[in-house]
């Protein structure tokens, strides 16, 4: 485990807001004093009304690295208090407060990458102790394939990981399984297509499998329907190859996928999940 920058509250100025899909916006923030972040981390956005009322929500970060330009992709939750404001009302030049970077559990770092300070050298974990659920990354993780599984806007932290992997020219095997309603609802559509140009066998490459649940592009063989257990069995790096699996999506999606992965023999400690609720 490497030392990551400490989180703190920062003032952020909106650099740009543009539609990501019909229901979401890509928001770029210039964060004063931002120390950089690892791929997969999140931040908390705090909005303050003139009467002092505040509302705080967590959003995954789509970008990574030392830059103080931080990219979010926010889905509009109908009836929500914060996300409709961010998607529909926020404009360049507006200010919000952000707390971050947050979370060291749902992150991926390129082997050898150094965010700051020296790496420590933990003793080899005692895998014989079944009760020891500690699953901090160790040196062997570097050679393990990485499987990303995302549903809807759950792609955001996974996109950050895939992008960081490509940027680093890392030769870890990467796969992404992405379930989305329609082609128009696909986040980072152009960027994902670009990442997929390099297949999984090449440095920085990735294999991307897109699952459309409501409407598929013309010529797509698979009829639109929900992701199935069989597809997870077929498209996810098999358990025998001990992939590290990152799952992000709604609570229902994440729990269903996780239960299938366990059924298919994946070690619970190799599965990292980020669930998101509403608003």
């Amino acid at each position, binding site marked *: 485990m490497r030392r990551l920058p400490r989180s703190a509250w920062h003032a952020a100025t909106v650099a740009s807001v543009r539609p990501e899909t019909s229901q979401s916006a890509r928001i770029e923030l210039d964060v004063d004093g931002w120390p950089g972040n690892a791929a997969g981390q999140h931040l908390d956005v705090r909005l303050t*009304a003139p009467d*002092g*009322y505040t*509302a705080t929500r967590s959003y995954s970060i789509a970008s990574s690295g030392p830059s103080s330009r931080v990219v979010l992709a926010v889905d509009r939750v109908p009836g929500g208090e914060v996300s409709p404001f961010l998607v529909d009302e926020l404009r360049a030049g507006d200010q919000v407060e952000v707390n971050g970077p947050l979370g060291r559990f749902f992150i991926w770092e390129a082997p050898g990458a150094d965010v700051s300070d020296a790496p420590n050298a933990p003793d080899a974990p005692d895998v014989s102790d079944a009760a020891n659920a500690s699953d901090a990354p160790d040196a062997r993780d570097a050679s393990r394939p990485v499987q990303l599984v995302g549903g809807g806007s759950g792609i955001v932290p996974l996109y950050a990981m895939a992008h960081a992997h490509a940027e680093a020219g890392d030769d870890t095997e990467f796969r992404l399984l992405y379930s989305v309603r329609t082609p128009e609802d696909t986040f980072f559509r152009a960027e994902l297509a670009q990442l997929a140009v390099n297949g999984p066998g090449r440095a920085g490459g990735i294999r991307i499998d897109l699952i459309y649940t409501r409407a598929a592009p013309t010529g797509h063989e698979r009829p639109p329907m929900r992701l199935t257990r069989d597809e997870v069995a077929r498209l996810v790096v098999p358990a025998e190859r001990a992939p590290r699996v990152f799952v992000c999506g709604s609570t229902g999606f994440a729990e269903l996928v996780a239960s299938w992965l366990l059924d298919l023999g994946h070690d619970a400690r190799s599965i990292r999940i980020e669930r998101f609720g509403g608003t």
Partner: protein
Amino acid sequence: MSFITRGFSGRGRAGRDERLPPGQTLVEDFPVLSAGPTPDIDTADWQFTIRTESGVDTSWTWDEFMALPIEDVSTDIHCVTHWSKLGTSWRGVSVDTLFEQVETEYEFAMAHSYGGYTTNVPLEDLLDGKAWIAFEFDGEPLEPEHGGPARLIVPHLYFWKSAKWVRGLVMMPDDDPGFWEQNGYHLHGDPWKEERYW
């Protein structure tokens, strides 16, 4: 507060009203507050119990409970999280009715809920027409997410005292703190005195 985000006011937060206690804002919807999974309780299994220092429990099944005198209650409710809702209508059994069958010298009660939630209320805040076990809201059976099949309502105190999925009261000699009261919230919770936190 010096930092303001342009154009942000919060959802459904309307203006002030003299019926509102200090620090409260009017809302139209009914925010749901949950400390855990919503328990699914069949009325066939439901039971309400009052336990006193005698060690004898007084219990009502759903059918026995429905045979008790039922009251219509119209009241304002105030949540500690600064929202208030005016003129809500409930149907339920007055806690006075239940205590007609119970003898106790203890002056405090702990409300217990299915799912494990607890909240403490002095007996004097439950009697004399101040509290009900409600099973209807707005003319409809109380939905599970709002505490159905039955919840305590103590509308003159902050709404966390109105325990959802209530299953009984345990009488106590002292005002021991319940779930939220152990973790920061005020032992009593009078909205007109802004008794929000310790």
